[in-house]
């Protein structure tokens, strides 16, 4: 393992919690030592010239389904919180322990423990032991927990342990076997569909339970206008909730599924154009706390099938930064907010000392050229599968250098 020798990155536009700052940043012993105008290279010190590019915290990807290091590094991701939906599920302390060490040193994986045994939504898993083993949160998995009693007891228990509860907000009864959001597109395609209100119902219940239990609850994906309204008003009341989204739901609507394109089969399904616009507005307004990749690489055995038979999910790690930078170019958010959504907030929710350029935090750093143009090409992806819904789309923003714990990663 390489030693985290002192390194100073000069000629940088630093993305700090107080906005963009021109200057340098010194990394020492794996943490951020100094930044801004006081950081000046010592004689003989190793220097990396950023050439005026952005220097940002490495991305903290909250809620991925696979550990896919090449794709994460391409996308500037230095930490990823892994969903418990693995085979076998992360419902046992030794599995959590194994996963927590799996990416080191150049990628830190933060396991999200299965909330219930086998993710069945019935019996609580050994959450406290899994926390000891390295779990940074508990998650309900791809599905929601239908039994409200189980969900309340889960939240009470997680609140006691101060673990965030990461939940999937779709009412299972309304969703059934649905593969699409009810509406014109699903109707024309003859797809089994569920109303977008499946999200509203799930959010309303879990917000009420969060309020009762005092648990920290993170809704991994909120995707509808009505859903954002619920989150907004709950936050205004002081309920301890956060919410996230992936680029698919603020870049694409259900129109992307026409011609039965299974790479656009997602969970929750793509919504109407109205909801997509509401998602952009909610991000701009600050209702959304986290943007994650939802990285879920799926090969042809899962995707080269009729639409409703295909598995949901997208390989998103490589495109999450470039797609989020679209929001800057569109005037929705500023550059500092990009890294709040991608790094600072997810790190805070997980309780890891990273995600921002601040002295004392882990030296997880990305050098980003925010304007570099490229074309998403599924035949040239780093991910273990090519299921991107953004294939052949133009993108802007590339990671030019990546540092984990003060050590540069070969890209």
């Amino acid at each position, binding site marked *: 393992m390489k030693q985290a020798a002192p390194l100073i990155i000069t000629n940088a536009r630093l993305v700090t919690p107080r906005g963009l700052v021109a200057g340098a940043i010194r990394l020492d012993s794996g943490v951020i030592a100094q930044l801004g105008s006081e950081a000046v290279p010592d004689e003989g010190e190793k220097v990396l010239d950023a050439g005026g590019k952005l220097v940002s915290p490495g991305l903290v990807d909250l809620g991925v389904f696979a550990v896919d290091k090449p794709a994460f590094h391409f996308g500037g991701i230095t930490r990823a919180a892994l969903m418990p939906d693995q085979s076998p599920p992360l419902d046992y302390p030794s599995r959590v322990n194994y996963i927590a060490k799996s990416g080191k040193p150049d990628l830190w994986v933060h396991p999200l423990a299965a909330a219930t045994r086998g993710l069945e939504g019935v019996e609580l898993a050994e959450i406290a032991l899994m926390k000891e083993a390295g779990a940074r949160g508990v998650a309900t998995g791809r599905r929601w927990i239908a039994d409200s009693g189980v969900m309340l007891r889960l939240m009470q228990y997680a609140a006691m342990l101060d673990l965030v509860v990461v939940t999937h907000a779709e009412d299972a009864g309304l969703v059934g076997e649905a593969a699409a959001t009810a509406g014109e597109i699903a109707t024309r395609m*003859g*797809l089994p569909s569920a109303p977008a209100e499946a999200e509203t119902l799930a959010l309303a219940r879990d917000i009420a339970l969060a309020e009762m239990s005092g648990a920290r609850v993170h809704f991994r994906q909120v995707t509808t206008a009505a859903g954002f309204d619920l989150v907004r008003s709950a936050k205004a009341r002081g309920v301890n909730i956060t919410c996230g989204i992936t680029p698919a739901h603020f870049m694409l609507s259900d129109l992307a599924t026409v011609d039965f394109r299974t790479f656009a089969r997602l969970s929750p399904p793509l919504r109407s154009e109205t909801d997509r616009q509401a998602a952009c507005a909610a991000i701009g307004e600050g209702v959304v706390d986290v943007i994650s990749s939802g990285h879920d690489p799926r090969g042809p055995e899962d995707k080269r099938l009729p639409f*409703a038979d295909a598995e949901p999910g997208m390989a998103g790690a490589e495109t999450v930064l470039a797609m989020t930078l679209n929001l800057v170019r569109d005037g929705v958010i500023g550059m500092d907010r990009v890294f709040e959504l991608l790094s600072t907030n997810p790190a805070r929710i997980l309780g890891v000392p990273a995600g921002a350029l601040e002295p004392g935090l882990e030296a997880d750093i990305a050098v980003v050229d925010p304007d570099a143009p490229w074309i998403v090409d599924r035949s040239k992806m780093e991910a273990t599968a090519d299921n991107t819904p953004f294939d052949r789309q133009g993108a802007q923003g590339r990671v030019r250098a990546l540092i984990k714990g003060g050590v540069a990663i070969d890209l």
Partner: protein
Amino acid sequence: MTATPSSNAPGRFPAGRLAFPHAHLTGIGHLERHEILFLLDAAEHWVELNRRGEKREELLAGRTIINAFFENSTRTLLSFEIAGKRLGADVVNMAAATSSLKKGETLIDTAITLNAMRPDAIVMRHGSSGATQLIAQKVDCPVLNAGDGSHEHPTQALLDALALREALRRRGEGSEDFTGLNVVICGDILHSRVARSNVLCLQAMGAKVRLCAPPALMPAGIEAMGVTPYSDFDAALDGVDVVMMLRLQSERMAGHFIPSEREYHHLYGLTKRRLSAAKPDALVMHPGPMNRGVEIDSEVADMIDRSIITQQVEMGVAIRMACLDVLTRGRRGVEGWA
């Protein structure tokens, strides 16, 4: 009947392949009005042939057609089989129960396997919407959709159009299309590929379409397809020219969409009394197989002057012959189609 325009009439359709430039028949949604008319006109020739004693014309002699049915079917499979055989083709049926899908083979692998046997056309039915389109991308021969999930069943809509056009012409009131006609389709719209294909086909032909179903069986956003939705069948029937009833698919009623067949009949069964709300000579259609006493009463289904249900079945063979002929013209080297 006045001179029937035929597909051979010069200038009526673009020449050769331009008249029907599609490699496959995956849905009515891909077709233009004139392409639908082209298929209907082409089928008229086969209607006449099918009424003769000698019913074979060896257009497809030596050609192989695979009927790949991943979902059970009796009448559509039979209709396609007869259509292929009357054109002289070697027709092979692959039924779901005997397919290797049961052994875990993926649909794509099955398609590649079928393709390797070098068929000249594949007719496919599958329980998942979009399955035919998926297969069409992977094989070298024309693929005909015989029903994919709740998406489309194009030959059913074409045969319905042909049967309706013939019936209107017999009455001397027909033109080549359905401009000015009001049609109501009643039943399980949500799960019905027949309804979707018929909406598209009837509208392309100029008809106004009403849909009628209990709310749980009416798909969301259906108004965007240009139809008028109803839940009150009597209101939906008011003044219509054509009543198209759908089969109540009991096998699709996994969830409890309706309380009972009896209650369904009470609200949505086509009875003679109820039919009186429609135009006095309104035609009655049903894609079959019928649940007599549930969605349609026998005395309506069997009305000689009003029900064209058996004619629909007859037109089915002719339409499928036309589709098989037209879609294989390219590979058969027909002049202007290669």
